[in-house]
């Protein structure tokens, strides 16, 4: 699978007087798995929608490059490379699971290959209910169908906006396993979450957002970090370690900073 590079420079997004993102810079290489962490209102979903080509930045530049290419993808080309899973499932309750996948494939200009779609349903554990309407599914089943729908056109980049919302522990674990398997396929995974445990489980590094700004970029350092038993460490200077306690402490500190700023 060829890869794409996502680059953002000085991204800013305003909604009227509210600035949701300010001065956001990042570079995400093909095949990387990155989490975007932060509290509610930090700008995580806004950033993800810009990455998906669903929203344009008010200022700054966002571009996506294919391996070895110098010309960035157009927004139209970008949409063909993106798979998107949101809090909502993006499926039609009146259509069956299989029909939802046929619809998604055709929407992306792919001829629906029934064998492949059946295989996809089997991978997400929905083969038994392929002909049942999605409206009758539990939240966990619908979210698994949403994952299948998002990869029906074989995208290189998978964007996940709080996909664990509303799932019980069993469904969440199952989803986590499926995402790990998609990551192992070499896809770029960008996960928006407020849960540092899921970020560590599924990502190589994180961008921690607070009030629209990136406040930290903790990253896993393979090998060296394992030797001292800490599991991982900060990638740069004073960045926090990419481990559960450090991320939780960072998010708590940012939340307290936010309350202090509000009070002032």
């Amino acid at each position, binding site marked *: 699978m060829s890869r794409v590079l996502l680059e953002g420079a000085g991204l800013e997004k305003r909604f009227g007087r509210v600035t949701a993102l300010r001065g956001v810079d990042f570079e995400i290489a093909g095949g990387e798995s990155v989490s975007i962490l932060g509290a509610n209102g930090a700008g995580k979903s806004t950033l993800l*929608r810009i990455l*998906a*080509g*669903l*929203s*344009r930045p008010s200022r700054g530049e966002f571009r996506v490059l294919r391996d070895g290419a110098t010309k960035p993808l157009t927004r*139209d*080309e970008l*949409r*063909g490379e*993106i798979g*998107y899973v*949101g*809090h*909502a*499932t*993006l*499926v*039609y*309750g*009146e*259509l069956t699971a299989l*029909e939802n996948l046929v*619809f*998604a494939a*055709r*929407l*992306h*200009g792919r001829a629906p290959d029934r064998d492949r779609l059946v295989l996809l349903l089997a991978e997400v554990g929905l083969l038994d209910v392929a002909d049942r*309407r999605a409206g009758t599914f539990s939240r966990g089943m*619908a979210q698994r169908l949403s994952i299948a*729908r998002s990869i029906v056109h074989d995208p290189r980049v998978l964007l996940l906006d709080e996909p664990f919302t509303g799932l019980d522990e069993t469904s969440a674990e199952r989803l986590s396993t499926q995402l790990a398997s998609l990551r192992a396929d070499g896809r770029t995974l960008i996960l928006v979450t407020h849960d540092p445990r899921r970020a560590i489980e599924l990502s190589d590094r994180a961008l921690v957002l607070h009030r629209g700004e990136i406040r930290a970029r903790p990253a896993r350092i393979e090998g060296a970090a394992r030797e001292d038993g800490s599991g991982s460490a900060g990638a740069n200077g004073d960045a926090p370690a990419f481990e559960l306690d450090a991320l939780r402490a960072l998010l708590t500190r940012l939340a307290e900073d936010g309350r202090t700023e509000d009070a002032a």
Partner: protein
Amino acid sequence: MNVAWTLLWKDLATEWRSRDRVVAMIVFSFLVVVVFQFAWPPMEPAEMRRFAPGVLWVTYVFAAVIGLGRTFAMELENDAMTALSLAPGTRGWIFLGKATATWVLITLVQAMTAFVFALFFRVELWTGIAGSALIVALANVSICSVGTLLSAMSVRSRFRDVLLPVLLIPTLIPVLTAAVQGSVATFAGEAPPFDALQLLIVIGGVYLILCFLLFDFVLDE
């Protein structure tokens, strides 16, 4: 083009299973016909044929507003609108698929309404049925084109239920003028006037092309 067929199939399949749009439009249309029937003063058949098309088109347009209001509201359930926005290629095909599905549903409801209307008002529809069908089909191109575009534009607004008719009906005034003028002729058993047909074809074509091109911007935030 395949995307348009896919959307057409999806919208008709979901409507067949839920029947929420068609049932709402039919109930509304039948109620309007019944209410008008009670309010209608006794008049000669010739006079009746002159006034009836106006009543019928008022019913058609308000029923269409109900159907058009649901065209994109159904895409908000489970945020399927985002999935549509992520589709690569010309988004005008999405518009065309949705508009065609709405055209089919609205035309179906109008045919049933015309039948009930003919029964209640004792209007002879069969003599000019071909001309009437042509006028309805052409006028619906404009109604569904502009209506689908405005439905997509207003769907995320808090005031969508108010916004859609307020924006839609003024843009349809020339279409309705031509449609009523044509229907008066067909109800009298004459051929539809050429200038009315010409107007419906030109406006329908312009609206269809404009809405196809503008739809790309509507799905963007």
